[in-house]
């Protein structure tokens, strides 16, 4: 391909803007043409039922299976958290929005589990690195993205909210390593009436969360 004049490798048509504007000059005819378009649309939606508008938020568009919404902590078959508190997600997190405290699991084969797992959803950039870093398929993302709360502190999700909150079932899982979940599953209220380890979830304050974020900047 040889460069033509003007430096472009391909032949690019040049548009004379003023000429085009003269052609589209608003006349009485173009006004009626525009009304005709509107009327045609009105009748097709009235009689053919072809309505492109979605009544959000009652309806919403289908989201991709790989949509990266608020996180989900998955569980084992017995309903306990899959997470082993390895801090891989907190380490990779570029927004430094994950705060974990680990405890001793009664089963020495599992050894470690999070007594606290907080994600500051306002700080999170939904990059999905935590999902990639997780060695256990313990954290996945959902297709949920609504963040309407009354207080800023409510946007810090703890274990309870991350593993079982209303809306996960309706929207379904988003970005995750295995399309059909291989090692873990999403917690369902019907199967398990009580949430495991609820007593560990205490009052959270943003300042405490930020302690973990400052660590690496010291």
């Amino acid at each position, binding site marked *: 391909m040889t460069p033509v004049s003007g430096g472009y490798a391909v032949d690019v048509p040049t548009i004379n803007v003023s000429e085009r504007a003269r052609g589209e000059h608003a006349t009485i005819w173009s006004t009626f043409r525009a009304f005709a378009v509107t009327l045609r649309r009105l009748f097709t939606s009235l009689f053919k039922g072809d309505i492109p508008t979605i009544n959000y938020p009652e309806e919403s568009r289908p989201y991709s299976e790989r949509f990266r919404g608020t996180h989900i902590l998955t569980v084992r078959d017995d309903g306990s958290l899959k997470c*082993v*508190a*390895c*801090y*891989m997600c907190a*380490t990779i997190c570029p927004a430094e929005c994950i705060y974990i405290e*680990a*405890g*001793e699991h009664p089963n*020495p*084969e*599992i*050894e*470690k589990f999070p007594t606290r797992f907080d994600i500051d959803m306002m700080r999170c950039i939904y990059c999905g690195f935590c999902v990639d870093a997780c*060695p*256990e398929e313990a954290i996945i993302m959902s297709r949920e993205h609504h963040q309407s709360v009354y207080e800023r502190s409510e946007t810090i999700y703890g274990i309870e909210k991350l593993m079982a909150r209303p809306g996960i079932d309706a929207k379904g899982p988003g970005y995750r390593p295995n399309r059909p979940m291989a090692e873990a599953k999403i917690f369902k209220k019907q199967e398990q009436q009580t949430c495991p380890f609820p007593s560990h979830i205490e009052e959270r304050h*943003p*300042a405490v969360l*930020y*302690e*973990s*974020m*400052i*660590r*690496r*900047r*010291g």
Partner: protein
Amino acid sequence: MPKVTINGQVYEAAKGKTIIQVADDIGVQIPRYCYHPDIGIEGSCRMCLVEVKSAPKLLPACATPVTENMDVRTDTQRVHEAVRYAMEFLLLHHPIDCPVCDQSGECWLQDYYMAHAGHDSRYPLGQKTRRRKAFNLGPLVKLDQERCILCTRCVRFTRHVTKTNEIQVFNRAHNSEIGIFEDRPLNNPYSGNVVDVCPVGALTSADFRFKARVWFLKGTDSVCAGCSTGCNLRIDHTARAAGGGIPGYTATDGKIYRTVGRRNVEVNKSWLCDEGRLSFHTLERWPRLRQASVRGKQQPVSALLPVIHANFESVRSDHGDDAVAALASATNTNEGLFLMKKYFKGRLDFRLGREVEQYQQQQDELLRRYDKHPNTHGALDLGLAGGLGGLRRLRDLAEKKEVRGMWISFHPQLVGEDAPEIIEDLKRLIEALEWSVVCTTHDFGWAHEADFLLPMAAWAEEKGTYTNYAGRVQIANRAVMPAGDAEPLHVLMAELLNLSGVEVPTDPAAIFEWIASEVPGYGGLDYDAIGPSGAAVAPVPEEVLR
């Protein structure tokens, strides 16, 4: 002095040294698990194999003494392969539970795998031998037999260093495993060191267990303030050590997570006692004193210091210079004590009890000493044991109204409890005084009896030097920020001295320069030249001791 060639470079090595010791001295890296400079030679891990020209087979560098004209190579293909195969055997039954292992991030298996092995395991994960996980060897140590590579460092530590022999290798061949006898837990006063010497995640600290991942922590070299031995240690802590951020929101003062022994052959080799290792928890035992106050009313420190200075001046002018005195703490740095001596014109003492008799007495054969203050030697060097005669005598002087105004700085013992009679004496002293300033680290009830209460930075929150029992000046660095408004003692004293018209720097290095120019024995010492392992001062003359 045999001449040794290592990787083509000729070095002169001391006779009797092994190849690995010579390589360590000159900075050639030889991988090793079982060899530890302070425990002795075992030769079981086969990681340090090197090629020696005259020898037909590879030789273990840790167990081969250097000889004249030895030609050693650590970088040949044969050596690389030997190390790679050794790693493959060591990792054969490794459970690869790095995500839950506290050692990961500082694990030698991880490091050497990345550096020397990088192979795929030929042993399927499901068929690996399972062993006991996460059981307590003692109050401070947890053992995971699956992760153990049987380097026997811990066994040799209890055999050669503490001579208590709690940890042993049980069974033979593939069944051999590290363990303890059922009725003899690992509870000697130095048990925490086996965690430090374990190169893998087999022995982990029960105190630090699951508290943090090590890559979030920052290490600051410091000195233990638990007793007069002054063991070298590294403080692992979070957060920035110097200000910034939004207070209470994005700024944190930092938190100490653990302390690890730092090698200093002159003082503690690589060891720490358990009390000293856990002494940083003492700082959390009571609530910290965060704000200065005058008779219960909170005030900023900067506004209080001129008032305190004016009070001391008025006592001096009304009742003579002798009516003002000070009680120092032997847990403060040389810099703080020196400026304190300057401000109080030598009328101060630091003796609470029997420090001076005890500071060189050993509590056991290894490290611990009876005097639980890190800087008794330094205080003696600075001449703080003068005519005032300690706390008991000061109390008598105050009760006789010979001393009317006093500055009392108090730092609690990091190891053990302060004797109750000391606290009782302090209480009586404050009661007897006309007015008093108590400068302390924690919110002690008795301190509120004083007229002025000043928060003081505790150990690990200030920078300065301690002089240990043997007269070795060592630098204790600041790891975390002081709590609240607390300031290091040398900063408070520098400000008081500035108020009295003496220009004083607040930088510990500059203050130390001043100390070096005035205090006998410290002449010629330079703060920057002290370095990580400290520098010795001349011995204290006998008359100063008395």
